[in-house]
Each structure stands twice: as C-alpha cells, then as structure tokens.
C-alpha cells in the first residue's frame, strides 16, 4: 500500500463545500469510487480525511468536496491509497444513470468521464446542484425523474450517505427489482476513521452476505447486496 507525501495545490469553493487539486504520485490515485486517506500535521485534525477523485487517472488529481475548512494551498498531506473497491463500469454499458442522493455529485465525476470515454450516454439525477466541471454531454434530470432514469439505464451508479440509504431505497421503489438485468452499484458515504487499519467497526454495513466494512469491502457495493437498512 503506497504511502506518500502530496501537496494541496489549489482550493475551490463549491456549493457542496471545498474541493481541491492535489499534487501526488500516480501510484496513490484512486479510481472511480475508490478513495485516499489524507492526514495533515494540523493539530486540530485528530483524524485523517477521506478523499475521492473527480479526475481520470492520467490527469492532475481533483478531489471532491467537502475538504476540511482549515486546509490551504501549499499544505503537505500524508496520503495512503488507493483504498477500497470502486465502481465496476461494465464495458458494454451504453446508458449510464448516475444518482447523487443528498451527496455531492462530484463524487461521480470520474466515473462520468470513464463512461463518456467508452461511448456511453450519461444522465445525472442529483438532489444537489450539478458540479461545475460536469461534462456538457451529460443530461441533467430533475431528481423527480429518478424512476425514468432507472428505467432507461443499463448501468446505474449512486452515491449516498449510509443514513440516507433507506430513503433512497424507497424512492427507487420496485424499479430495481423490476429491472433484474440492470447492474446497479452504490457508493456509500460514511466516516472511515481507520480506513481498514483498525477494523474499528464504525463503518460496518449489513449486507445480504452479513456484516461488511465499507472501508475494506466497499465503499462501492452492488445495490442488490444491501439490506433494506444498512
């Protein structure tokens, strides 16, 4: 597991909080849905911070909001990664629906760009405003059209906090069951303080295969593997 030093080069204010540009070796860059663990020497931060990428692997690393309010350009970060299991976009996927429920759509940005690169049409249903960097080929739907997006897609990727999953599940209704062939994955957001080092258990999630750790077994899971209330 590579552990390296990186530098926060740039901070940007977005509607979902601070986003940033990080200078770091390629070896630690996370794929879509994977994450990096970043620690700064700032004493007020007793825990490391989880970073998700918004970039493609060969580009400078743009990280998704929200970053800690006290971070500033030039800050040195100790980085550990890439960690976790990310999205598995099927090669044959041609209609990709992205769903950001009560979470920044920027978390799905690198996946969006992978999907466009392989020639898929992409729609985004988000309860938050679309990120400024969203490619213009992406069709943005109001969240009320979630069911239509599910009915249209051949691959669905969602991002949501663990505590919002039951609500999202309700909003999806029977649509997932009705579309048995639809490949559907969810990035579960939750604090991951030890990121697998300690198996502290705070990120435990209940799946049909028993208890799993979001930091180790996720953060992306098949939506069909999740219990009603994870």
């Amino acid at each position, binding site marked *: 597991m590579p552990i390296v030093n990186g530098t926060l080069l740039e901070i940007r204010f977005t509607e979902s909080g601070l986003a940033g540009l990080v200078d770091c070796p390629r070896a630690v860059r996370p794929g879509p849905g994977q994450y990096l663990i970043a620690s700064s*020497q700032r004493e*007020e931060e*007793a*825990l490391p911070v989880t970073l998700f990428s918004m970039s493609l692997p060969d580009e400078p690393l743009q990280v998704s909001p929200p970053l800690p309010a006290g971070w500033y350009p030039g800050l040195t970060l100790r980085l*550990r990664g890439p960690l976790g299991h990310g999205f598995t976009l099927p090669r044959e996927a041609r209609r990709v629906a992205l769903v950001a429920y009560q979470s920044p759509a920027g978390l799905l940005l690198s996946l969006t760009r992978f999907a466009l690169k392989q020639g898929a049409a992409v729609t985004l249903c988000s309860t938050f405003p679309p990120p400024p960097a969203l490619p213009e080929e992406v069709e943005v739907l109001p969240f009320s059209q979630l069911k239509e997006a599910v009915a249209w897609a051949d691959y669905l990727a969602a991002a949501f906090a663990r505590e919002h999953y039951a609500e999202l599940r309700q909003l999806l209704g029977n649509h997932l069951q009705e579309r048995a062939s639809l490949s559907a994955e969810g990035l579960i957001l939750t604090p991951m*303080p030890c990121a697998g*080092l*300690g*198996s502290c258990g705070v990120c435990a999630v209940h799946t049909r295969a028993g208890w799993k750790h979001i930091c180790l077994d996720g953060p992306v899971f098949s939506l069909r593997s999740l219990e009603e209330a994870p």
Partner: protein
Amino acid sequence: MGIQDLMLKSPYLNAASMFGFAPPSHWPLDLPPGAFITHPISLKPRAPAENRTVLQFAGGFLLHTGLPNPGLFATLKQFARRWARSPLPVWVHIIPSSPAEAAQMVAHLENIEGVTAIELGLPPGLTDDENLRMIEAACGELPLLVSLPVDRYREAWVFQTGKSPVSGLILSAPRGVLFRTDRTLVEGRLYGPALFPQMLAAFHALRSTGLPLIVGCGLYRHADVEAVLASGALAVQFDGALWKGLLP
C-alpha cells in the same frame, strides 16, 4: 515491573481498537512498536451498535461502535495462529461482562501461544466492589493490565487495585457525549490531543498507587510522548495518531 517483565520490545504500543485483531503489516509511526494490543474481545459475539458513528470536536473525536467482535472463540479460530507467529508480543484486550466470564476468558488465553498479557476493559457502570471482583477474577498466570478510562481515576476502587496482583494501569480513553447533526445524543469513547491535560492530571494523581502506569490517550506529539516517559510512565499507547500516521 519494567518493560522487560512485560516482554515489551519498546515502550510504544497501540491502544486497543486501533489495529483490529492481528498485528498490522505496517506500523505507521517512526517509533518502533513494543507489543500488539488486540481490538476488545468479549466472550460472546457483539454486533456493531445501531447508531455507530464517529463525531469530531475541536481537538478530538468521539467514537461509538459498540465494540463489535466475533467473540473469543471465533477470534481465536481466526487469529490464534497469527498471534503465535507474531514477532511482537500480543496483549489481548478482553471485555468480559461478569467475573465468571473474565476468569473463563483468561484461563483460555493462558494456553494461547504468543499471548503475553491480558488487558482488562471494565464495563461502565459497575460499583467499586464489582470492579474489584472483576479484576480479581481476571488475575491468572498472565500479567494483567487494567484499562482505566481517565475520567474515572478518582473512583475509590482504583486505589485498591494494587491489592490484586495487577501489573499496571492503562490510562485509556474517557467517555463523553456529543450531539449528532439531528441533535440526538451519542455516547462514546473520546480521543484526541485535547485529552492530554486530563490524562496528565490522572497520571500524576495515580503515581501514589505505586502501580506501573501506561499512558494510553491524548498522545499526538512526539514531545508529549517523551515527556510522559521521562516522568515515569512504563509505556505509552497511541490511538488516533496511528490512524493519521503522523506524530509531529
């Protein structure tokens, strides 16, 4: 009692809960580890707490997990071989719910290769007598270290701990309560550099017990670590600094 008696390779340890059930492949600080302390283990399996969470506050964080673990026997089945092969001595942190459970767990662990000490976590809410009975029950052939949350250092039973053959006290994370964003309250263990002064007060008050003391919370700076060791702490345990991988 010195670090040799406890077969420690150095005075730098991890706090229970920081590294799971088996020694990590990589120790993240630039101070050499002296032993490996397991995640807390109960006799029977424990599921994660329903409202498990971590909440940050200025200078620290509250962790509420319910101390999930598969129970002693399932843990041994999965990890005993790794403990036997561990280059570091293994201290098993047990969280029995009664003296009978404590005695049963300790008796079992005495036969496990690689285990060199027991760390006892006491359930919250016990009376003085109940705490002392639990400690007595956990005294066996292996050295016993009692984990004492620093907010409880003034309790009367602490000063009687020395009547049992206890090898030392570990000043560990206190408990606290914080609001979630929805204003519900969560209780949990507190960690972070903000606890250092509280830990130091407990450390100085407990020197009169004559028991070896291990400082097990609030350590986030090299200078503080060296200062408590120079003041007579037998060893130190790191918590969140291990997750950050930094000790400025």
